[in-house]
């Protein structure tokens, strides 16, 4: 796959002296979905704004499909669509006109058939003649997406697309993202919601305090860092792990009603079979067993804590 977006050692220091980006490197392949995770103020929006031309980088280089965003900004920006975090829309204008404006701004001639297609895809066709101010928050979010797609971009930035959106609409939005991906659009989304990244992203990037901590395929990340836990409920409580089981990475729960075993589910041997046999030998009776895999959220919290 070819690289469509390349960010090389980009820094951004605002006039106030605040360093929002401290040397960011990022390569995005065409057609992938990258979720950029990070706490508030991590630099997510600054990074997107810098790539899209809303703020100018202090140093570093950004290219989109080989076009430098500063020296060749017209070509670079034609390829990009941006859905901002805020619901910024002209309130008195009709939905379809704001979408037409966007298409024109990006240098494309009128194409009513294409505009109808995206409005239908986003369930906005019935609302095309409604004024923007008459729409609900979720609908406004869709209008922003329609505007961003109006000029047929190859790269789409979604800055917190589902912030403040109800569960049902969030699922709809994921559906839209899925469809866009199948059309070959590269998507970079920022989010607070780990479940969102978990549900739709191919790769996950974690950003904190203006630095990218890691970018990895979601599956790898979860496998690498996802420790599994086996919880064994006991019939009779124990005060400590019996001596015969000291070799296992095992600890008793606080109330002594359970033993907790940590293991790597991807390792050559999990040790579960022998552990269970040894438990029986030690004369412990089990009432229940359950396993738990750490979610992306836990991984994320750990990572951010490490760098804090």
């Amino acid at each position, binding site marked *: 796959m070819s690289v469509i977006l390349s960010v090389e050692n980009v820094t951004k220091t605002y006039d106030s002296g605040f360093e929002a980006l401290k040397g960011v490197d990022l390569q995005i392949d065409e057609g992938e979905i990258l979720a950029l995770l990070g706490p508030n103020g991590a630099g997510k929006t600054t990074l997107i704004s810098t790539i899209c031309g809303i*703020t100018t980088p202090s140093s570093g280089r950004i290219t989109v499909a080989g076009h430098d965003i500063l020296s060749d900004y017209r*070509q670079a920006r034609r390829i990009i669509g941006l859905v901002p975090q805020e619901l*910024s829309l002209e309130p008195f204008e009709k939905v379809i006109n704001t979408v037409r404006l966007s298409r024109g701004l990006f240098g494309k001639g009128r194409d009513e058939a294409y505009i109808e297609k995206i409005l239908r895809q986003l369930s906005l066709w019935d609302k095309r003649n409604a004024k923007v101010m008459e729409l609900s928050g979720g609908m406004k979010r869709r209008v922003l997406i329609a505007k961003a797609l109006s000029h047929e971009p190859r790269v789409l930035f979604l800055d917190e697309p589902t912030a403040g959106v109800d569960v049902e609409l969030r699922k709809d939005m994921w559906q839209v993202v899925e469809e866009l991906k199948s059309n070959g659009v590269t998507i970079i989304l920022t989010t607070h919601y780990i479940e969102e990244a978990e549900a739709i992203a191919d790769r996950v990037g974690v950003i904190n305090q203006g630095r990218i901590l890691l970018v990895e395929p979601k599956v790898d990340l979860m496998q690498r860092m996802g420790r599994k836990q086996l919880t064994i409920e006991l019939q009779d409580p124990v005060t400590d792990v019996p001596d015969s089981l000291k070799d296992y990475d095992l600890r008793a729960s606080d109330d002594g009603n359970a033993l907790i075993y940590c293991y790597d589910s991807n390792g050559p041997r999990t040790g579960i079979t022998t552990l269970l046999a040894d438990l029986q030998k030690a004369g412990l009776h089990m009432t229940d067993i359950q396993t738990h895999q750490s979610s992306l959220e836990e991984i994320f919290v750990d990572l951010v804590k490490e760098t804090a």
Partner: protein
Amino acid sequence: MNFQAVKAIYLFEMARFFRTLAQSFLSPVLSTSLYFVVFGAAIGSRIDQVEGVSYGAFIVPGLIMLSVMTQATSNASFGIYFPKFIGTIYELLSAPISFFEIVIGYVGAAATKALFVGLVILGTAYFFVDLQIAHPLAMFAFLILTCLSFSLLGFIIGIWAQNFEQLQLIPLLVITPLVFLGGSFYSISMLPPVWQTITLFNPVVYLISGFRWSFFGAADVGIGVSLIAIAAFTAICLAIIWWIFKTGYRIRS
């Protein structure tokens, strides 16, 4: 050059104008009529003629200029301030367009609206007074130049303004007084000598004077001076806009 973008901005801005067409049309008609009733009928009946022209006709160029200047400024300043205020400026900044093209779109639309208002006032004036335009081409040229230059000024104000109060500040505190004191409703020769000299520092005097020349063939200051004045004013506005573009002043961090 991204012509599609210029066209899109222009049409989008004009759509705002057409949404409120009745207002855009009725308010200049009404205000002009009021001026004619008050200045033309009430005061004009006591003033015989100014520079060989009936008072009612004499004030027409000044009336048009008054509205055109305020309309051009407020339209252009609002046009670019509103996207800043509601946040839709992000789209302009992320689109493949140059600042120059943004200016053409917004200033072009604001100037068109001001021109429309100017022509409506001219049309209304025909109902009240006998009007002969001595130099129609010069009249149009002056009108269009004024629309453009004050729209440029409005654009600068819109970029500079950080709230609605600031947006109103310059039109209200600077432009309206300068236009009123710039010989809209009187000839400078009617003032005492000291005030005649002071008035010559008011740039609007040259614009109104030149515009009046195109109507009646006579003016307070020479037409050449008027042309230089409006060219200088336009050049200053363009220079400020070029500086805004270079520095990203109040638009791009």
